[in-house]
């Protein structure tokens, strides 16, 4: 029989101090029964002597310190799982949303997971074709990668994430991705957009949806991504599925963490976020990956909105240090009506090098993307120069770069929301755009590929003339 305590001495913000407790463990799950009969849950943040500091997930409003009863459950927060979670909706704490979402659990797992032994990891090198040129061609995504989208308020990150979820396939294999969609403090409309999209494509039957909406308790958000990732780990490593996890919006998660830290009166790090934000985010992002001898994989696409589009803000900054690259959306491209407005120069996929090339995509992939990057970067510089000096001041070659950068944005980066390009189409488009340059300018490409691929376009152009 579990003991019940009525000895709450302090309540402040999301925290509660309980006195006279015995045998309480760090990180233990807590059940809080209010006078009116409702039940909340919490977890132990610190134990000292006979006092326990409890973080209440649903918030402390309405808690009467004298008449609220607290029970310590002797275990951490767990998620109950079986294969039936596919197609179901859960709350931010992992409870079924409606009666229809109840499942008969096969097992339960601690939502905090355990660190994967680096020796047990398998290196992610299987190319995922998302059908979006700016990702496939330039910032290639591979199975088991964590690739966040750095966005800003008002930018179409949801459309892009939905497009990735809809179109992603692995070349030559007919396996489909299971999708774990984790909504962290986003609005009803945003989450509904996703759910409708999953419904329209029939993907809903292989999706798990974890919902913590903007009007749900903020502190619950600390558990929400962990619940989603526990589902993903179960599906990937016990049920051999390839899982795509979309976490949106991580900024709200960090805000919740900041709130708890402030309530504990911890010494803040940069901009009021706790000093352990990096470590805490790592325990979420590092749960992506592949494991040796396991068929499944977890690919993560966290979305975060950068406050004031500032990449040096602690949330995008620390995220970038943990994740394997980032896709950055640009407001100026969005204003030019390019979709998806991917700012390719600062975007990066760290795992692309092992996921592309012969046998994966095509032999010329690495060289062409280096060349496209370098040429586009130079084109952008020329465009800046033209703003100051006027186009007349440009040399002949500069003008070619100028035009190239425009074409590249309009044809390569920009594509329709429902346009699904194969990797071949993306690579060929790259060659077509590069063919405006004389051969000597294409320094990043090996001669053999220039011979093999470039000539085709040169001839075509001459033919047109």
């Amino acid at each position: 029989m579990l003991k019940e305590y009525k000895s709450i001495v302090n309540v402040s913000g999301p925290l509660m101090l309980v006195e006279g407790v015995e045998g309480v463990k760090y990180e233990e799950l807590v059940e809080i029964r209010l006078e009116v009969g409702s039940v909340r849950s919490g977890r132990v943040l610190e134990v000292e002597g006979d006092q326990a500091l409890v973080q209440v997930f649903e918030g402390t409003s309405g808690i009467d310190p004298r008449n609220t009863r607290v029970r310590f459950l002797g275990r951490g927060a767990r998620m109950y799982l079986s294969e039936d979670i596919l197609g179901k909706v859960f709350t931010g704490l992992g409870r079924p949303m409606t009666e229809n979402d109840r499942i008969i659990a096969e097992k339960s797992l601690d939502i905090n997971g355990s660190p994967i032994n680096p020796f047990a990891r398998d290196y992610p090198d299987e190319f995922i074709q998302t059908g979006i040129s700016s990702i496939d061609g330039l910032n290639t995504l591979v199975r088991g990668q964590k690739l966040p989208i750095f966005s800003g308020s008002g930018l179409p990150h949801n459309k892009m994430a939905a497009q990735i979820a809809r179109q992603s396939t692995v070349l030559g294999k007919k396996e489909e991705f299971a999708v774990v969609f984790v909504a962290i403090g986003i609005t009803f409309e945003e989450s509904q957009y996703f759910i409708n999209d999953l419904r329209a494509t029939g993907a809903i039957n292989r999706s798990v949806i974890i919902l913590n909406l903007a009007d749900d308790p903020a502190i619950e958000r600390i558990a929400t991504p962990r619940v989603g990732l526990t589902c993903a780990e179960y599906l990937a490593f016990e049920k051999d599925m390839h899982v795509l996890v979309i976490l949106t919006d991580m900024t709200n998660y960090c805000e919740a963490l900041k709130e708890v830290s402030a309530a504990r009166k911890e010494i803040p790090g940069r901009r009021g976020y706790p000093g352990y934000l990096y470590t805490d985010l790592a325990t979420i992002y590092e749960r992506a990956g592949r494991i040796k001898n396991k068929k499944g994989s977890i690919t993560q696409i966290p979305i975060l909105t950068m406050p004031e589009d500032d990449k040096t803000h602690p949330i995008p900054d620390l995220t970038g240090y943990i994740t394997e690259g980032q896709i950055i959306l640009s407001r100026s491209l969005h204003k030019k009506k390019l979709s998806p407005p991917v700012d390719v120069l600062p975007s990066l996929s760290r795992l692309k090098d092992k996921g592309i090339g012969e046998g994966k995509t095509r032999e010329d992939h690495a060289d062409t993307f280096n060349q496209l990057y370098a040429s586009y970067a130079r084109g952008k510089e020329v465009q800046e120069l033209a703003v100051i000096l006027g186009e007349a001041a440009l040399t002949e070659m500069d003008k070619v770069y100028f035009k190239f950068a425009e074409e590249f944005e309009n044809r390569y980066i920009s594509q329709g929301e429902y346009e699904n390009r194969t990797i071949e189409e993306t690579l060929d488009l790259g060659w077509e755009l590069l063919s405006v340059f004389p051969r000597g300018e294409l320094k990043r490409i090996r001669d053999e590929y220039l011979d093999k691929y470039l000539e085709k376009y040169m001839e075509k152009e001459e033919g047109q003339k």
Partner: protein
Amino acid sequence: MAKIGKIIKVSGPLVVAENMSGSRMFDIVYVSDMRLMGEIIEFRGDKASIQVYEETSGIGVGEPVYPAGRPLNVELGPGIIESIYDGIQRPLDDIYNSSGNYISRGVTADPLDRSKKWEFKPLVKKGDSAAEGDYLGYVQETPLIKHYIMVPPGVKGKVKDIGEGLLAIEDTVAVLSGGEGDVDINMIQRWPVRRPRPYKNKKMPDIPLFTGQRVIDMFFPLAKGGTACVPGPFGSGKTVIQHQLAKWVDAEVIVYIGCGERGNEMTDVLMEFPGLVDPKSGEPLMKRTILIANTSNMPVAAREASVYTGITIAEYFRDMGYSVALMADSTSRWAEAMREISGRLEEMPGEEGYPAYLGARLASFYERAGMVECLGSADGRTGALSVIGAVSPPGGDLSDPVVQATLRVVKVFWSLEANLAYRRHFPAISWLNSYSLYNDSIKENVKKEVAEDYFDLQSDAMSMLEEESELEEIVRLVGLEALSGPDRIILLVSRMIREDFLHQNAFHDIDTYSSIEKQYRMIDVILYFYRQASDSLRMGAEIADVESMKVRDRIARMKYIPKEEIDRIDKIKNDIKAEFTELVEKPHLEE
């Protein structure tokens, strides 16, 4: 014997226990009956604050704390090469075999394989006298490494007995009889990680440490026994540079510490290194490498320990007389671990919440690098330990306290710039902001080994790049057409230096490593082009013609010339000469 303590507080990785008198500062303890390893970092009365190297969830007040009565040690001996350890020297491969895909708590495993037999070859005879640091014998641990068994520090005497043949590491290999009776010596040495291993004396680092990376070797070289730091924002290529150095640096032993970084990066090293071949010996690079992996999701306190574990292992090989290079990626995560523990101890914070002793800790870590005369009675052998630390400042801001504290001690600064990375100019080391203070000390040796005019070429190329940045300002204001011919030559040649020399593709089979001879010839060709171009301009050639010369394409491709054919680089000079002669003669014909 110290008493068993009792936990009175648990807060994240910090546990406070009472009844701890009898233990010492920085002693190891085992927390609760799960026996989680921890280290004492503060005493107040008989209460000790303990940083726990494993996840503490489920630990509560009243549980026991068992003192181990010793500080945090590493085990040093044959079998250590090719290992992958976590921050407290638990072998991750053994843990994987014994407990599966996840690191569960309280698991233990011996850092070194006890059962494996090694072929021990003695180097001393019965009756010889041996003092600390002297070789007793060696085992051929890998084709690249002779693992010398040395007399441990503080021991000396006459060799009473010496073993030979197949022995396990715990077997006695030698007996020394000294003033205090006989001492049995086996192949394991234990050393507390926070104490630097002793040496006879330190020397000035005057031998260059070449890395095969052109921007580093040519412009900002490192010395054997030197220290360097690589700060930069995310995505600027810190890890790729660290990996490149681990692969190609001219050292005999590599210790790579992945401190609070990505799990997949360690996997990358683990999978890639066994397949890569050392350019000198032709053996797989893994045969000289030791990995310490404490990824970002592993417990914070062990991250703090991992850099010490790594450097102690590196010092051990230095003591054998090897040149050792240690890479720590990233020291910012180590500093953050210090900050977190300091915050939990409720210490008064310094800048950005980092503890006030941050600078002192960093300095004493980097000071463990150096070129030393090793312990040992006769031979006077030299060992070198070079340390290269990556720093990950928030937002790439170099005013970050970790960067500033690091720059105060290290002698080489490779500044990574996001702008270069966006243009895919890798390695994104800024040629304007970086520096190396070893240029002077290694001067004599480089002149002897590479070329007499090495430093002249370096300073010519460097001043051209500096001039380019000034000229670019002018171009921004008034346009390229306004520049004089010689200035445009400078712009042209500096672009060649940037794109054809400094830019180096880590993922290209040949370009990934450039021998110092190849680098020297490449920069020599580019500067030869510059001299020829300047001359031809004076003799009436048009700048536009120079800019569109065919030979530039050959210069651009010389980085892809394999090392067996580097003579081809010198031949480019003839082509340059020929094309310029043609150019200068052309206008005369028209007249």
